[in-house]
């Protein structure tokens, strides 16, 4: 049929010009604002919120652990045990001199007898005369830049003060801390992955429901000449929009909660327990990496929603 032939008798006006400005012309072909759609957006929002909180928590632990590790690894400790017939002060001075002579050591600080005894106060109480007790003495050795040869220091201490001085580089504690932090981060990643999987499954069911609920729409689209790809795209667009809405709300809520937590932590830090809270949680701040991962989880949830819905529709149509 020739172009325009169907409308041969139709009035030739300038129809587009006087279209009502409020006329809706390109509404989504798959209805979006349905109760099922809102429910799915809510599910995605909740899942995103939980995943983002989890990621934020893991990030707090990881960055606090890194902070602790950083400050702990800056120091090693030499313990000098008092022995019968030994001049402990001289032993301490020898050990401190050995440490100070080691390349890469920035400073040494021997604890005096009084200071060492004070370290025991939390356990033994104050007002005790500890003069007769063989209280070990500590020397903190602050490490500078570069990697000091702690092995040779340990050996030289053993040679100069056998059975008296020992070097503790906190390696055991550090490795435990790092294991703990890695475990928390690993659990966090696993939970985020599980939540995204749950999102994918929820979307699969929701898409199947939507396909069944929109069977009429799909059929009409087929009859008017839409191919499967076009229909899949329309569904994908709808679900991506729902996913974006859900993911956005979930991520925003998570950011809000983390922000609130940070504000509360700052408030508490002023109080008596502040130091402990700060020591445990760092600043309760997740840094740009944490914020980025929360936002990323929201985006990934939306993308998962879109991709899963498209695959589900294609499988349904094929």
């Amino acid at each position, binding site marked *: *049929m*020739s172009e325009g*032939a*169907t*409308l*041969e*008798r*139709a*009035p*030739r*006006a*300038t*129809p*587009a010009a006087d*279209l*009502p400005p*409020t*006329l*809706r*012309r*390109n*509404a989504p*072909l798959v*209805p979006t604002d349905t109760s099922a759609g809102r429910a799915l957006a809510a599910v995605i929002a909740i899942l995103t919120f939980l995943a983002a909180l989890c990621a934020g928590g893991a990030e707090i632990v990881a960055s606090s652990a890194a902070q602790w590790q950083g400050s702990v690894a800056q120091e090693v400790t030499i313990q000098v045990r008092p022995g019968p017939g030994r001049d402990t002060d001289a032993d301490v001075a020898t050990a401190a001199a050995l440490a100070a002579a080691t390349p890469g050591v920035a400073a040494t600080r021997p604890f005096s007898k009084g200071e060492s005894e004070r370290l025991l106060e939390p356990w033994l109480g104050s007002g005790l005369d500890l003069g007769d007790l063989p209280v070990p003495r500590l020397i903190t050795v602050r490490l500078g830049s570069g990697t000091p040869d702690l092995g040779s220091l340990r050996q030289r201490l053993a040679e100069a003060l056998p059975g008296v001085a020992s070097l503790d580089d906190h390696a055991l504690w550090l490795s435990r801390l790092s294991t703990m932090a890695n475990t928390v981060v690993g659990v966090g990643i696993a939970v985020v992955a599980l939540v995204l999987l749950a999102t994918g499954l929820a979307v699969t069911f929701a898409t199947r429901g939507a396909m069944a609920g929109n069977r*009429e*729409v799909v*059929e*009409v*689209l*087929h*009859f*008017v*000449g*839409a*191919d*499967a790809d*076009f229909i899949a795209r329309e569904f994908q667009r709808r679900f991506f929009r729902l996913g974006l809405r859900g993911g956005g709300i979930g991520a925003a809520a998570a950011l809000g909660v983390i922000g609130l937590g940070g504000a509360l932590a700052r408030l508490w830090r002023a109080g008596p327990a502040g130091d402990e809270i700060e020591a445990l949680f760092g600043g309760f701040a997740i840094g740009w990496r944490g914020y980025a991962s929360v936002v990323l989880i929201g985006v990934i949830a939306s993308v998962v929603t879109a991709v899963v819905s498209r695959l589900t529709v294609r499988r349904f149509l*094929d």
Partner: protein
Amino acid sequence: MDARTDRGTGSSLLGGMDEPVVRFENVGMRYGVGPEVLSDISFTIAPHSFQFLTGPSGAGKTTLLRLILLSVRPSRGLVSVFGEEVSGISSEALTSLRRRMGVVFQDFRLLDHLTTYENVALPLRVQGRAETSYRAEVVELLRWVGLGERMHVLPPLLSGGEKQRAAIARALIARPELLLADEPTGNVDPQLGRRLLRLFVELNRLGTSVLIATHDFALMDLVDARRFILGNNRLRIEG
């Protein structure tokens, strides 16, 4: 009505040399393991021809239309549409065949969440065309079928006759080579029915093959066209 349709015997503006638009050979159709609802159906629809499909309710008119629309496949026999045999047809080929047909369903099948304008524009939209490229055509056609003032209305708010005209406009908008209509005048008063029929006749005069399923004999008497009569699962052709 001064219908100037061909007698549908294959003679046409181009002299009957064209390949048939639709060809059925000994087609039988059953749903599941039930009895055949159509048996040994053979006919052709020539290009530019006009025909009615009639018969009592339940005779299989809608099934026959669905077979032509390729929404169901025959249990036996051969169906070819636009020269293409439809058994084992690919989904791409199916889409391109459907784009050459327009269909008016008995129950209209308008999408309730789209405006009348969007419903009518649907066949063009699914081809991936930009809205601005077809706006004038859609508005023109809507005005022609008398829906110029109703284009922003959602179908649930349209009257039966308005829905019918919207469905017809949707079937016509992409200028199909074959128009299938299932009781297209069933819900309108006789005067509007005649007007709609004139629309189909006009469309046919411009080259589209038309098949109208109806049991309105008064309507059929208005056009001198071939009649496919379904009864007892078989097809008889008159005229």
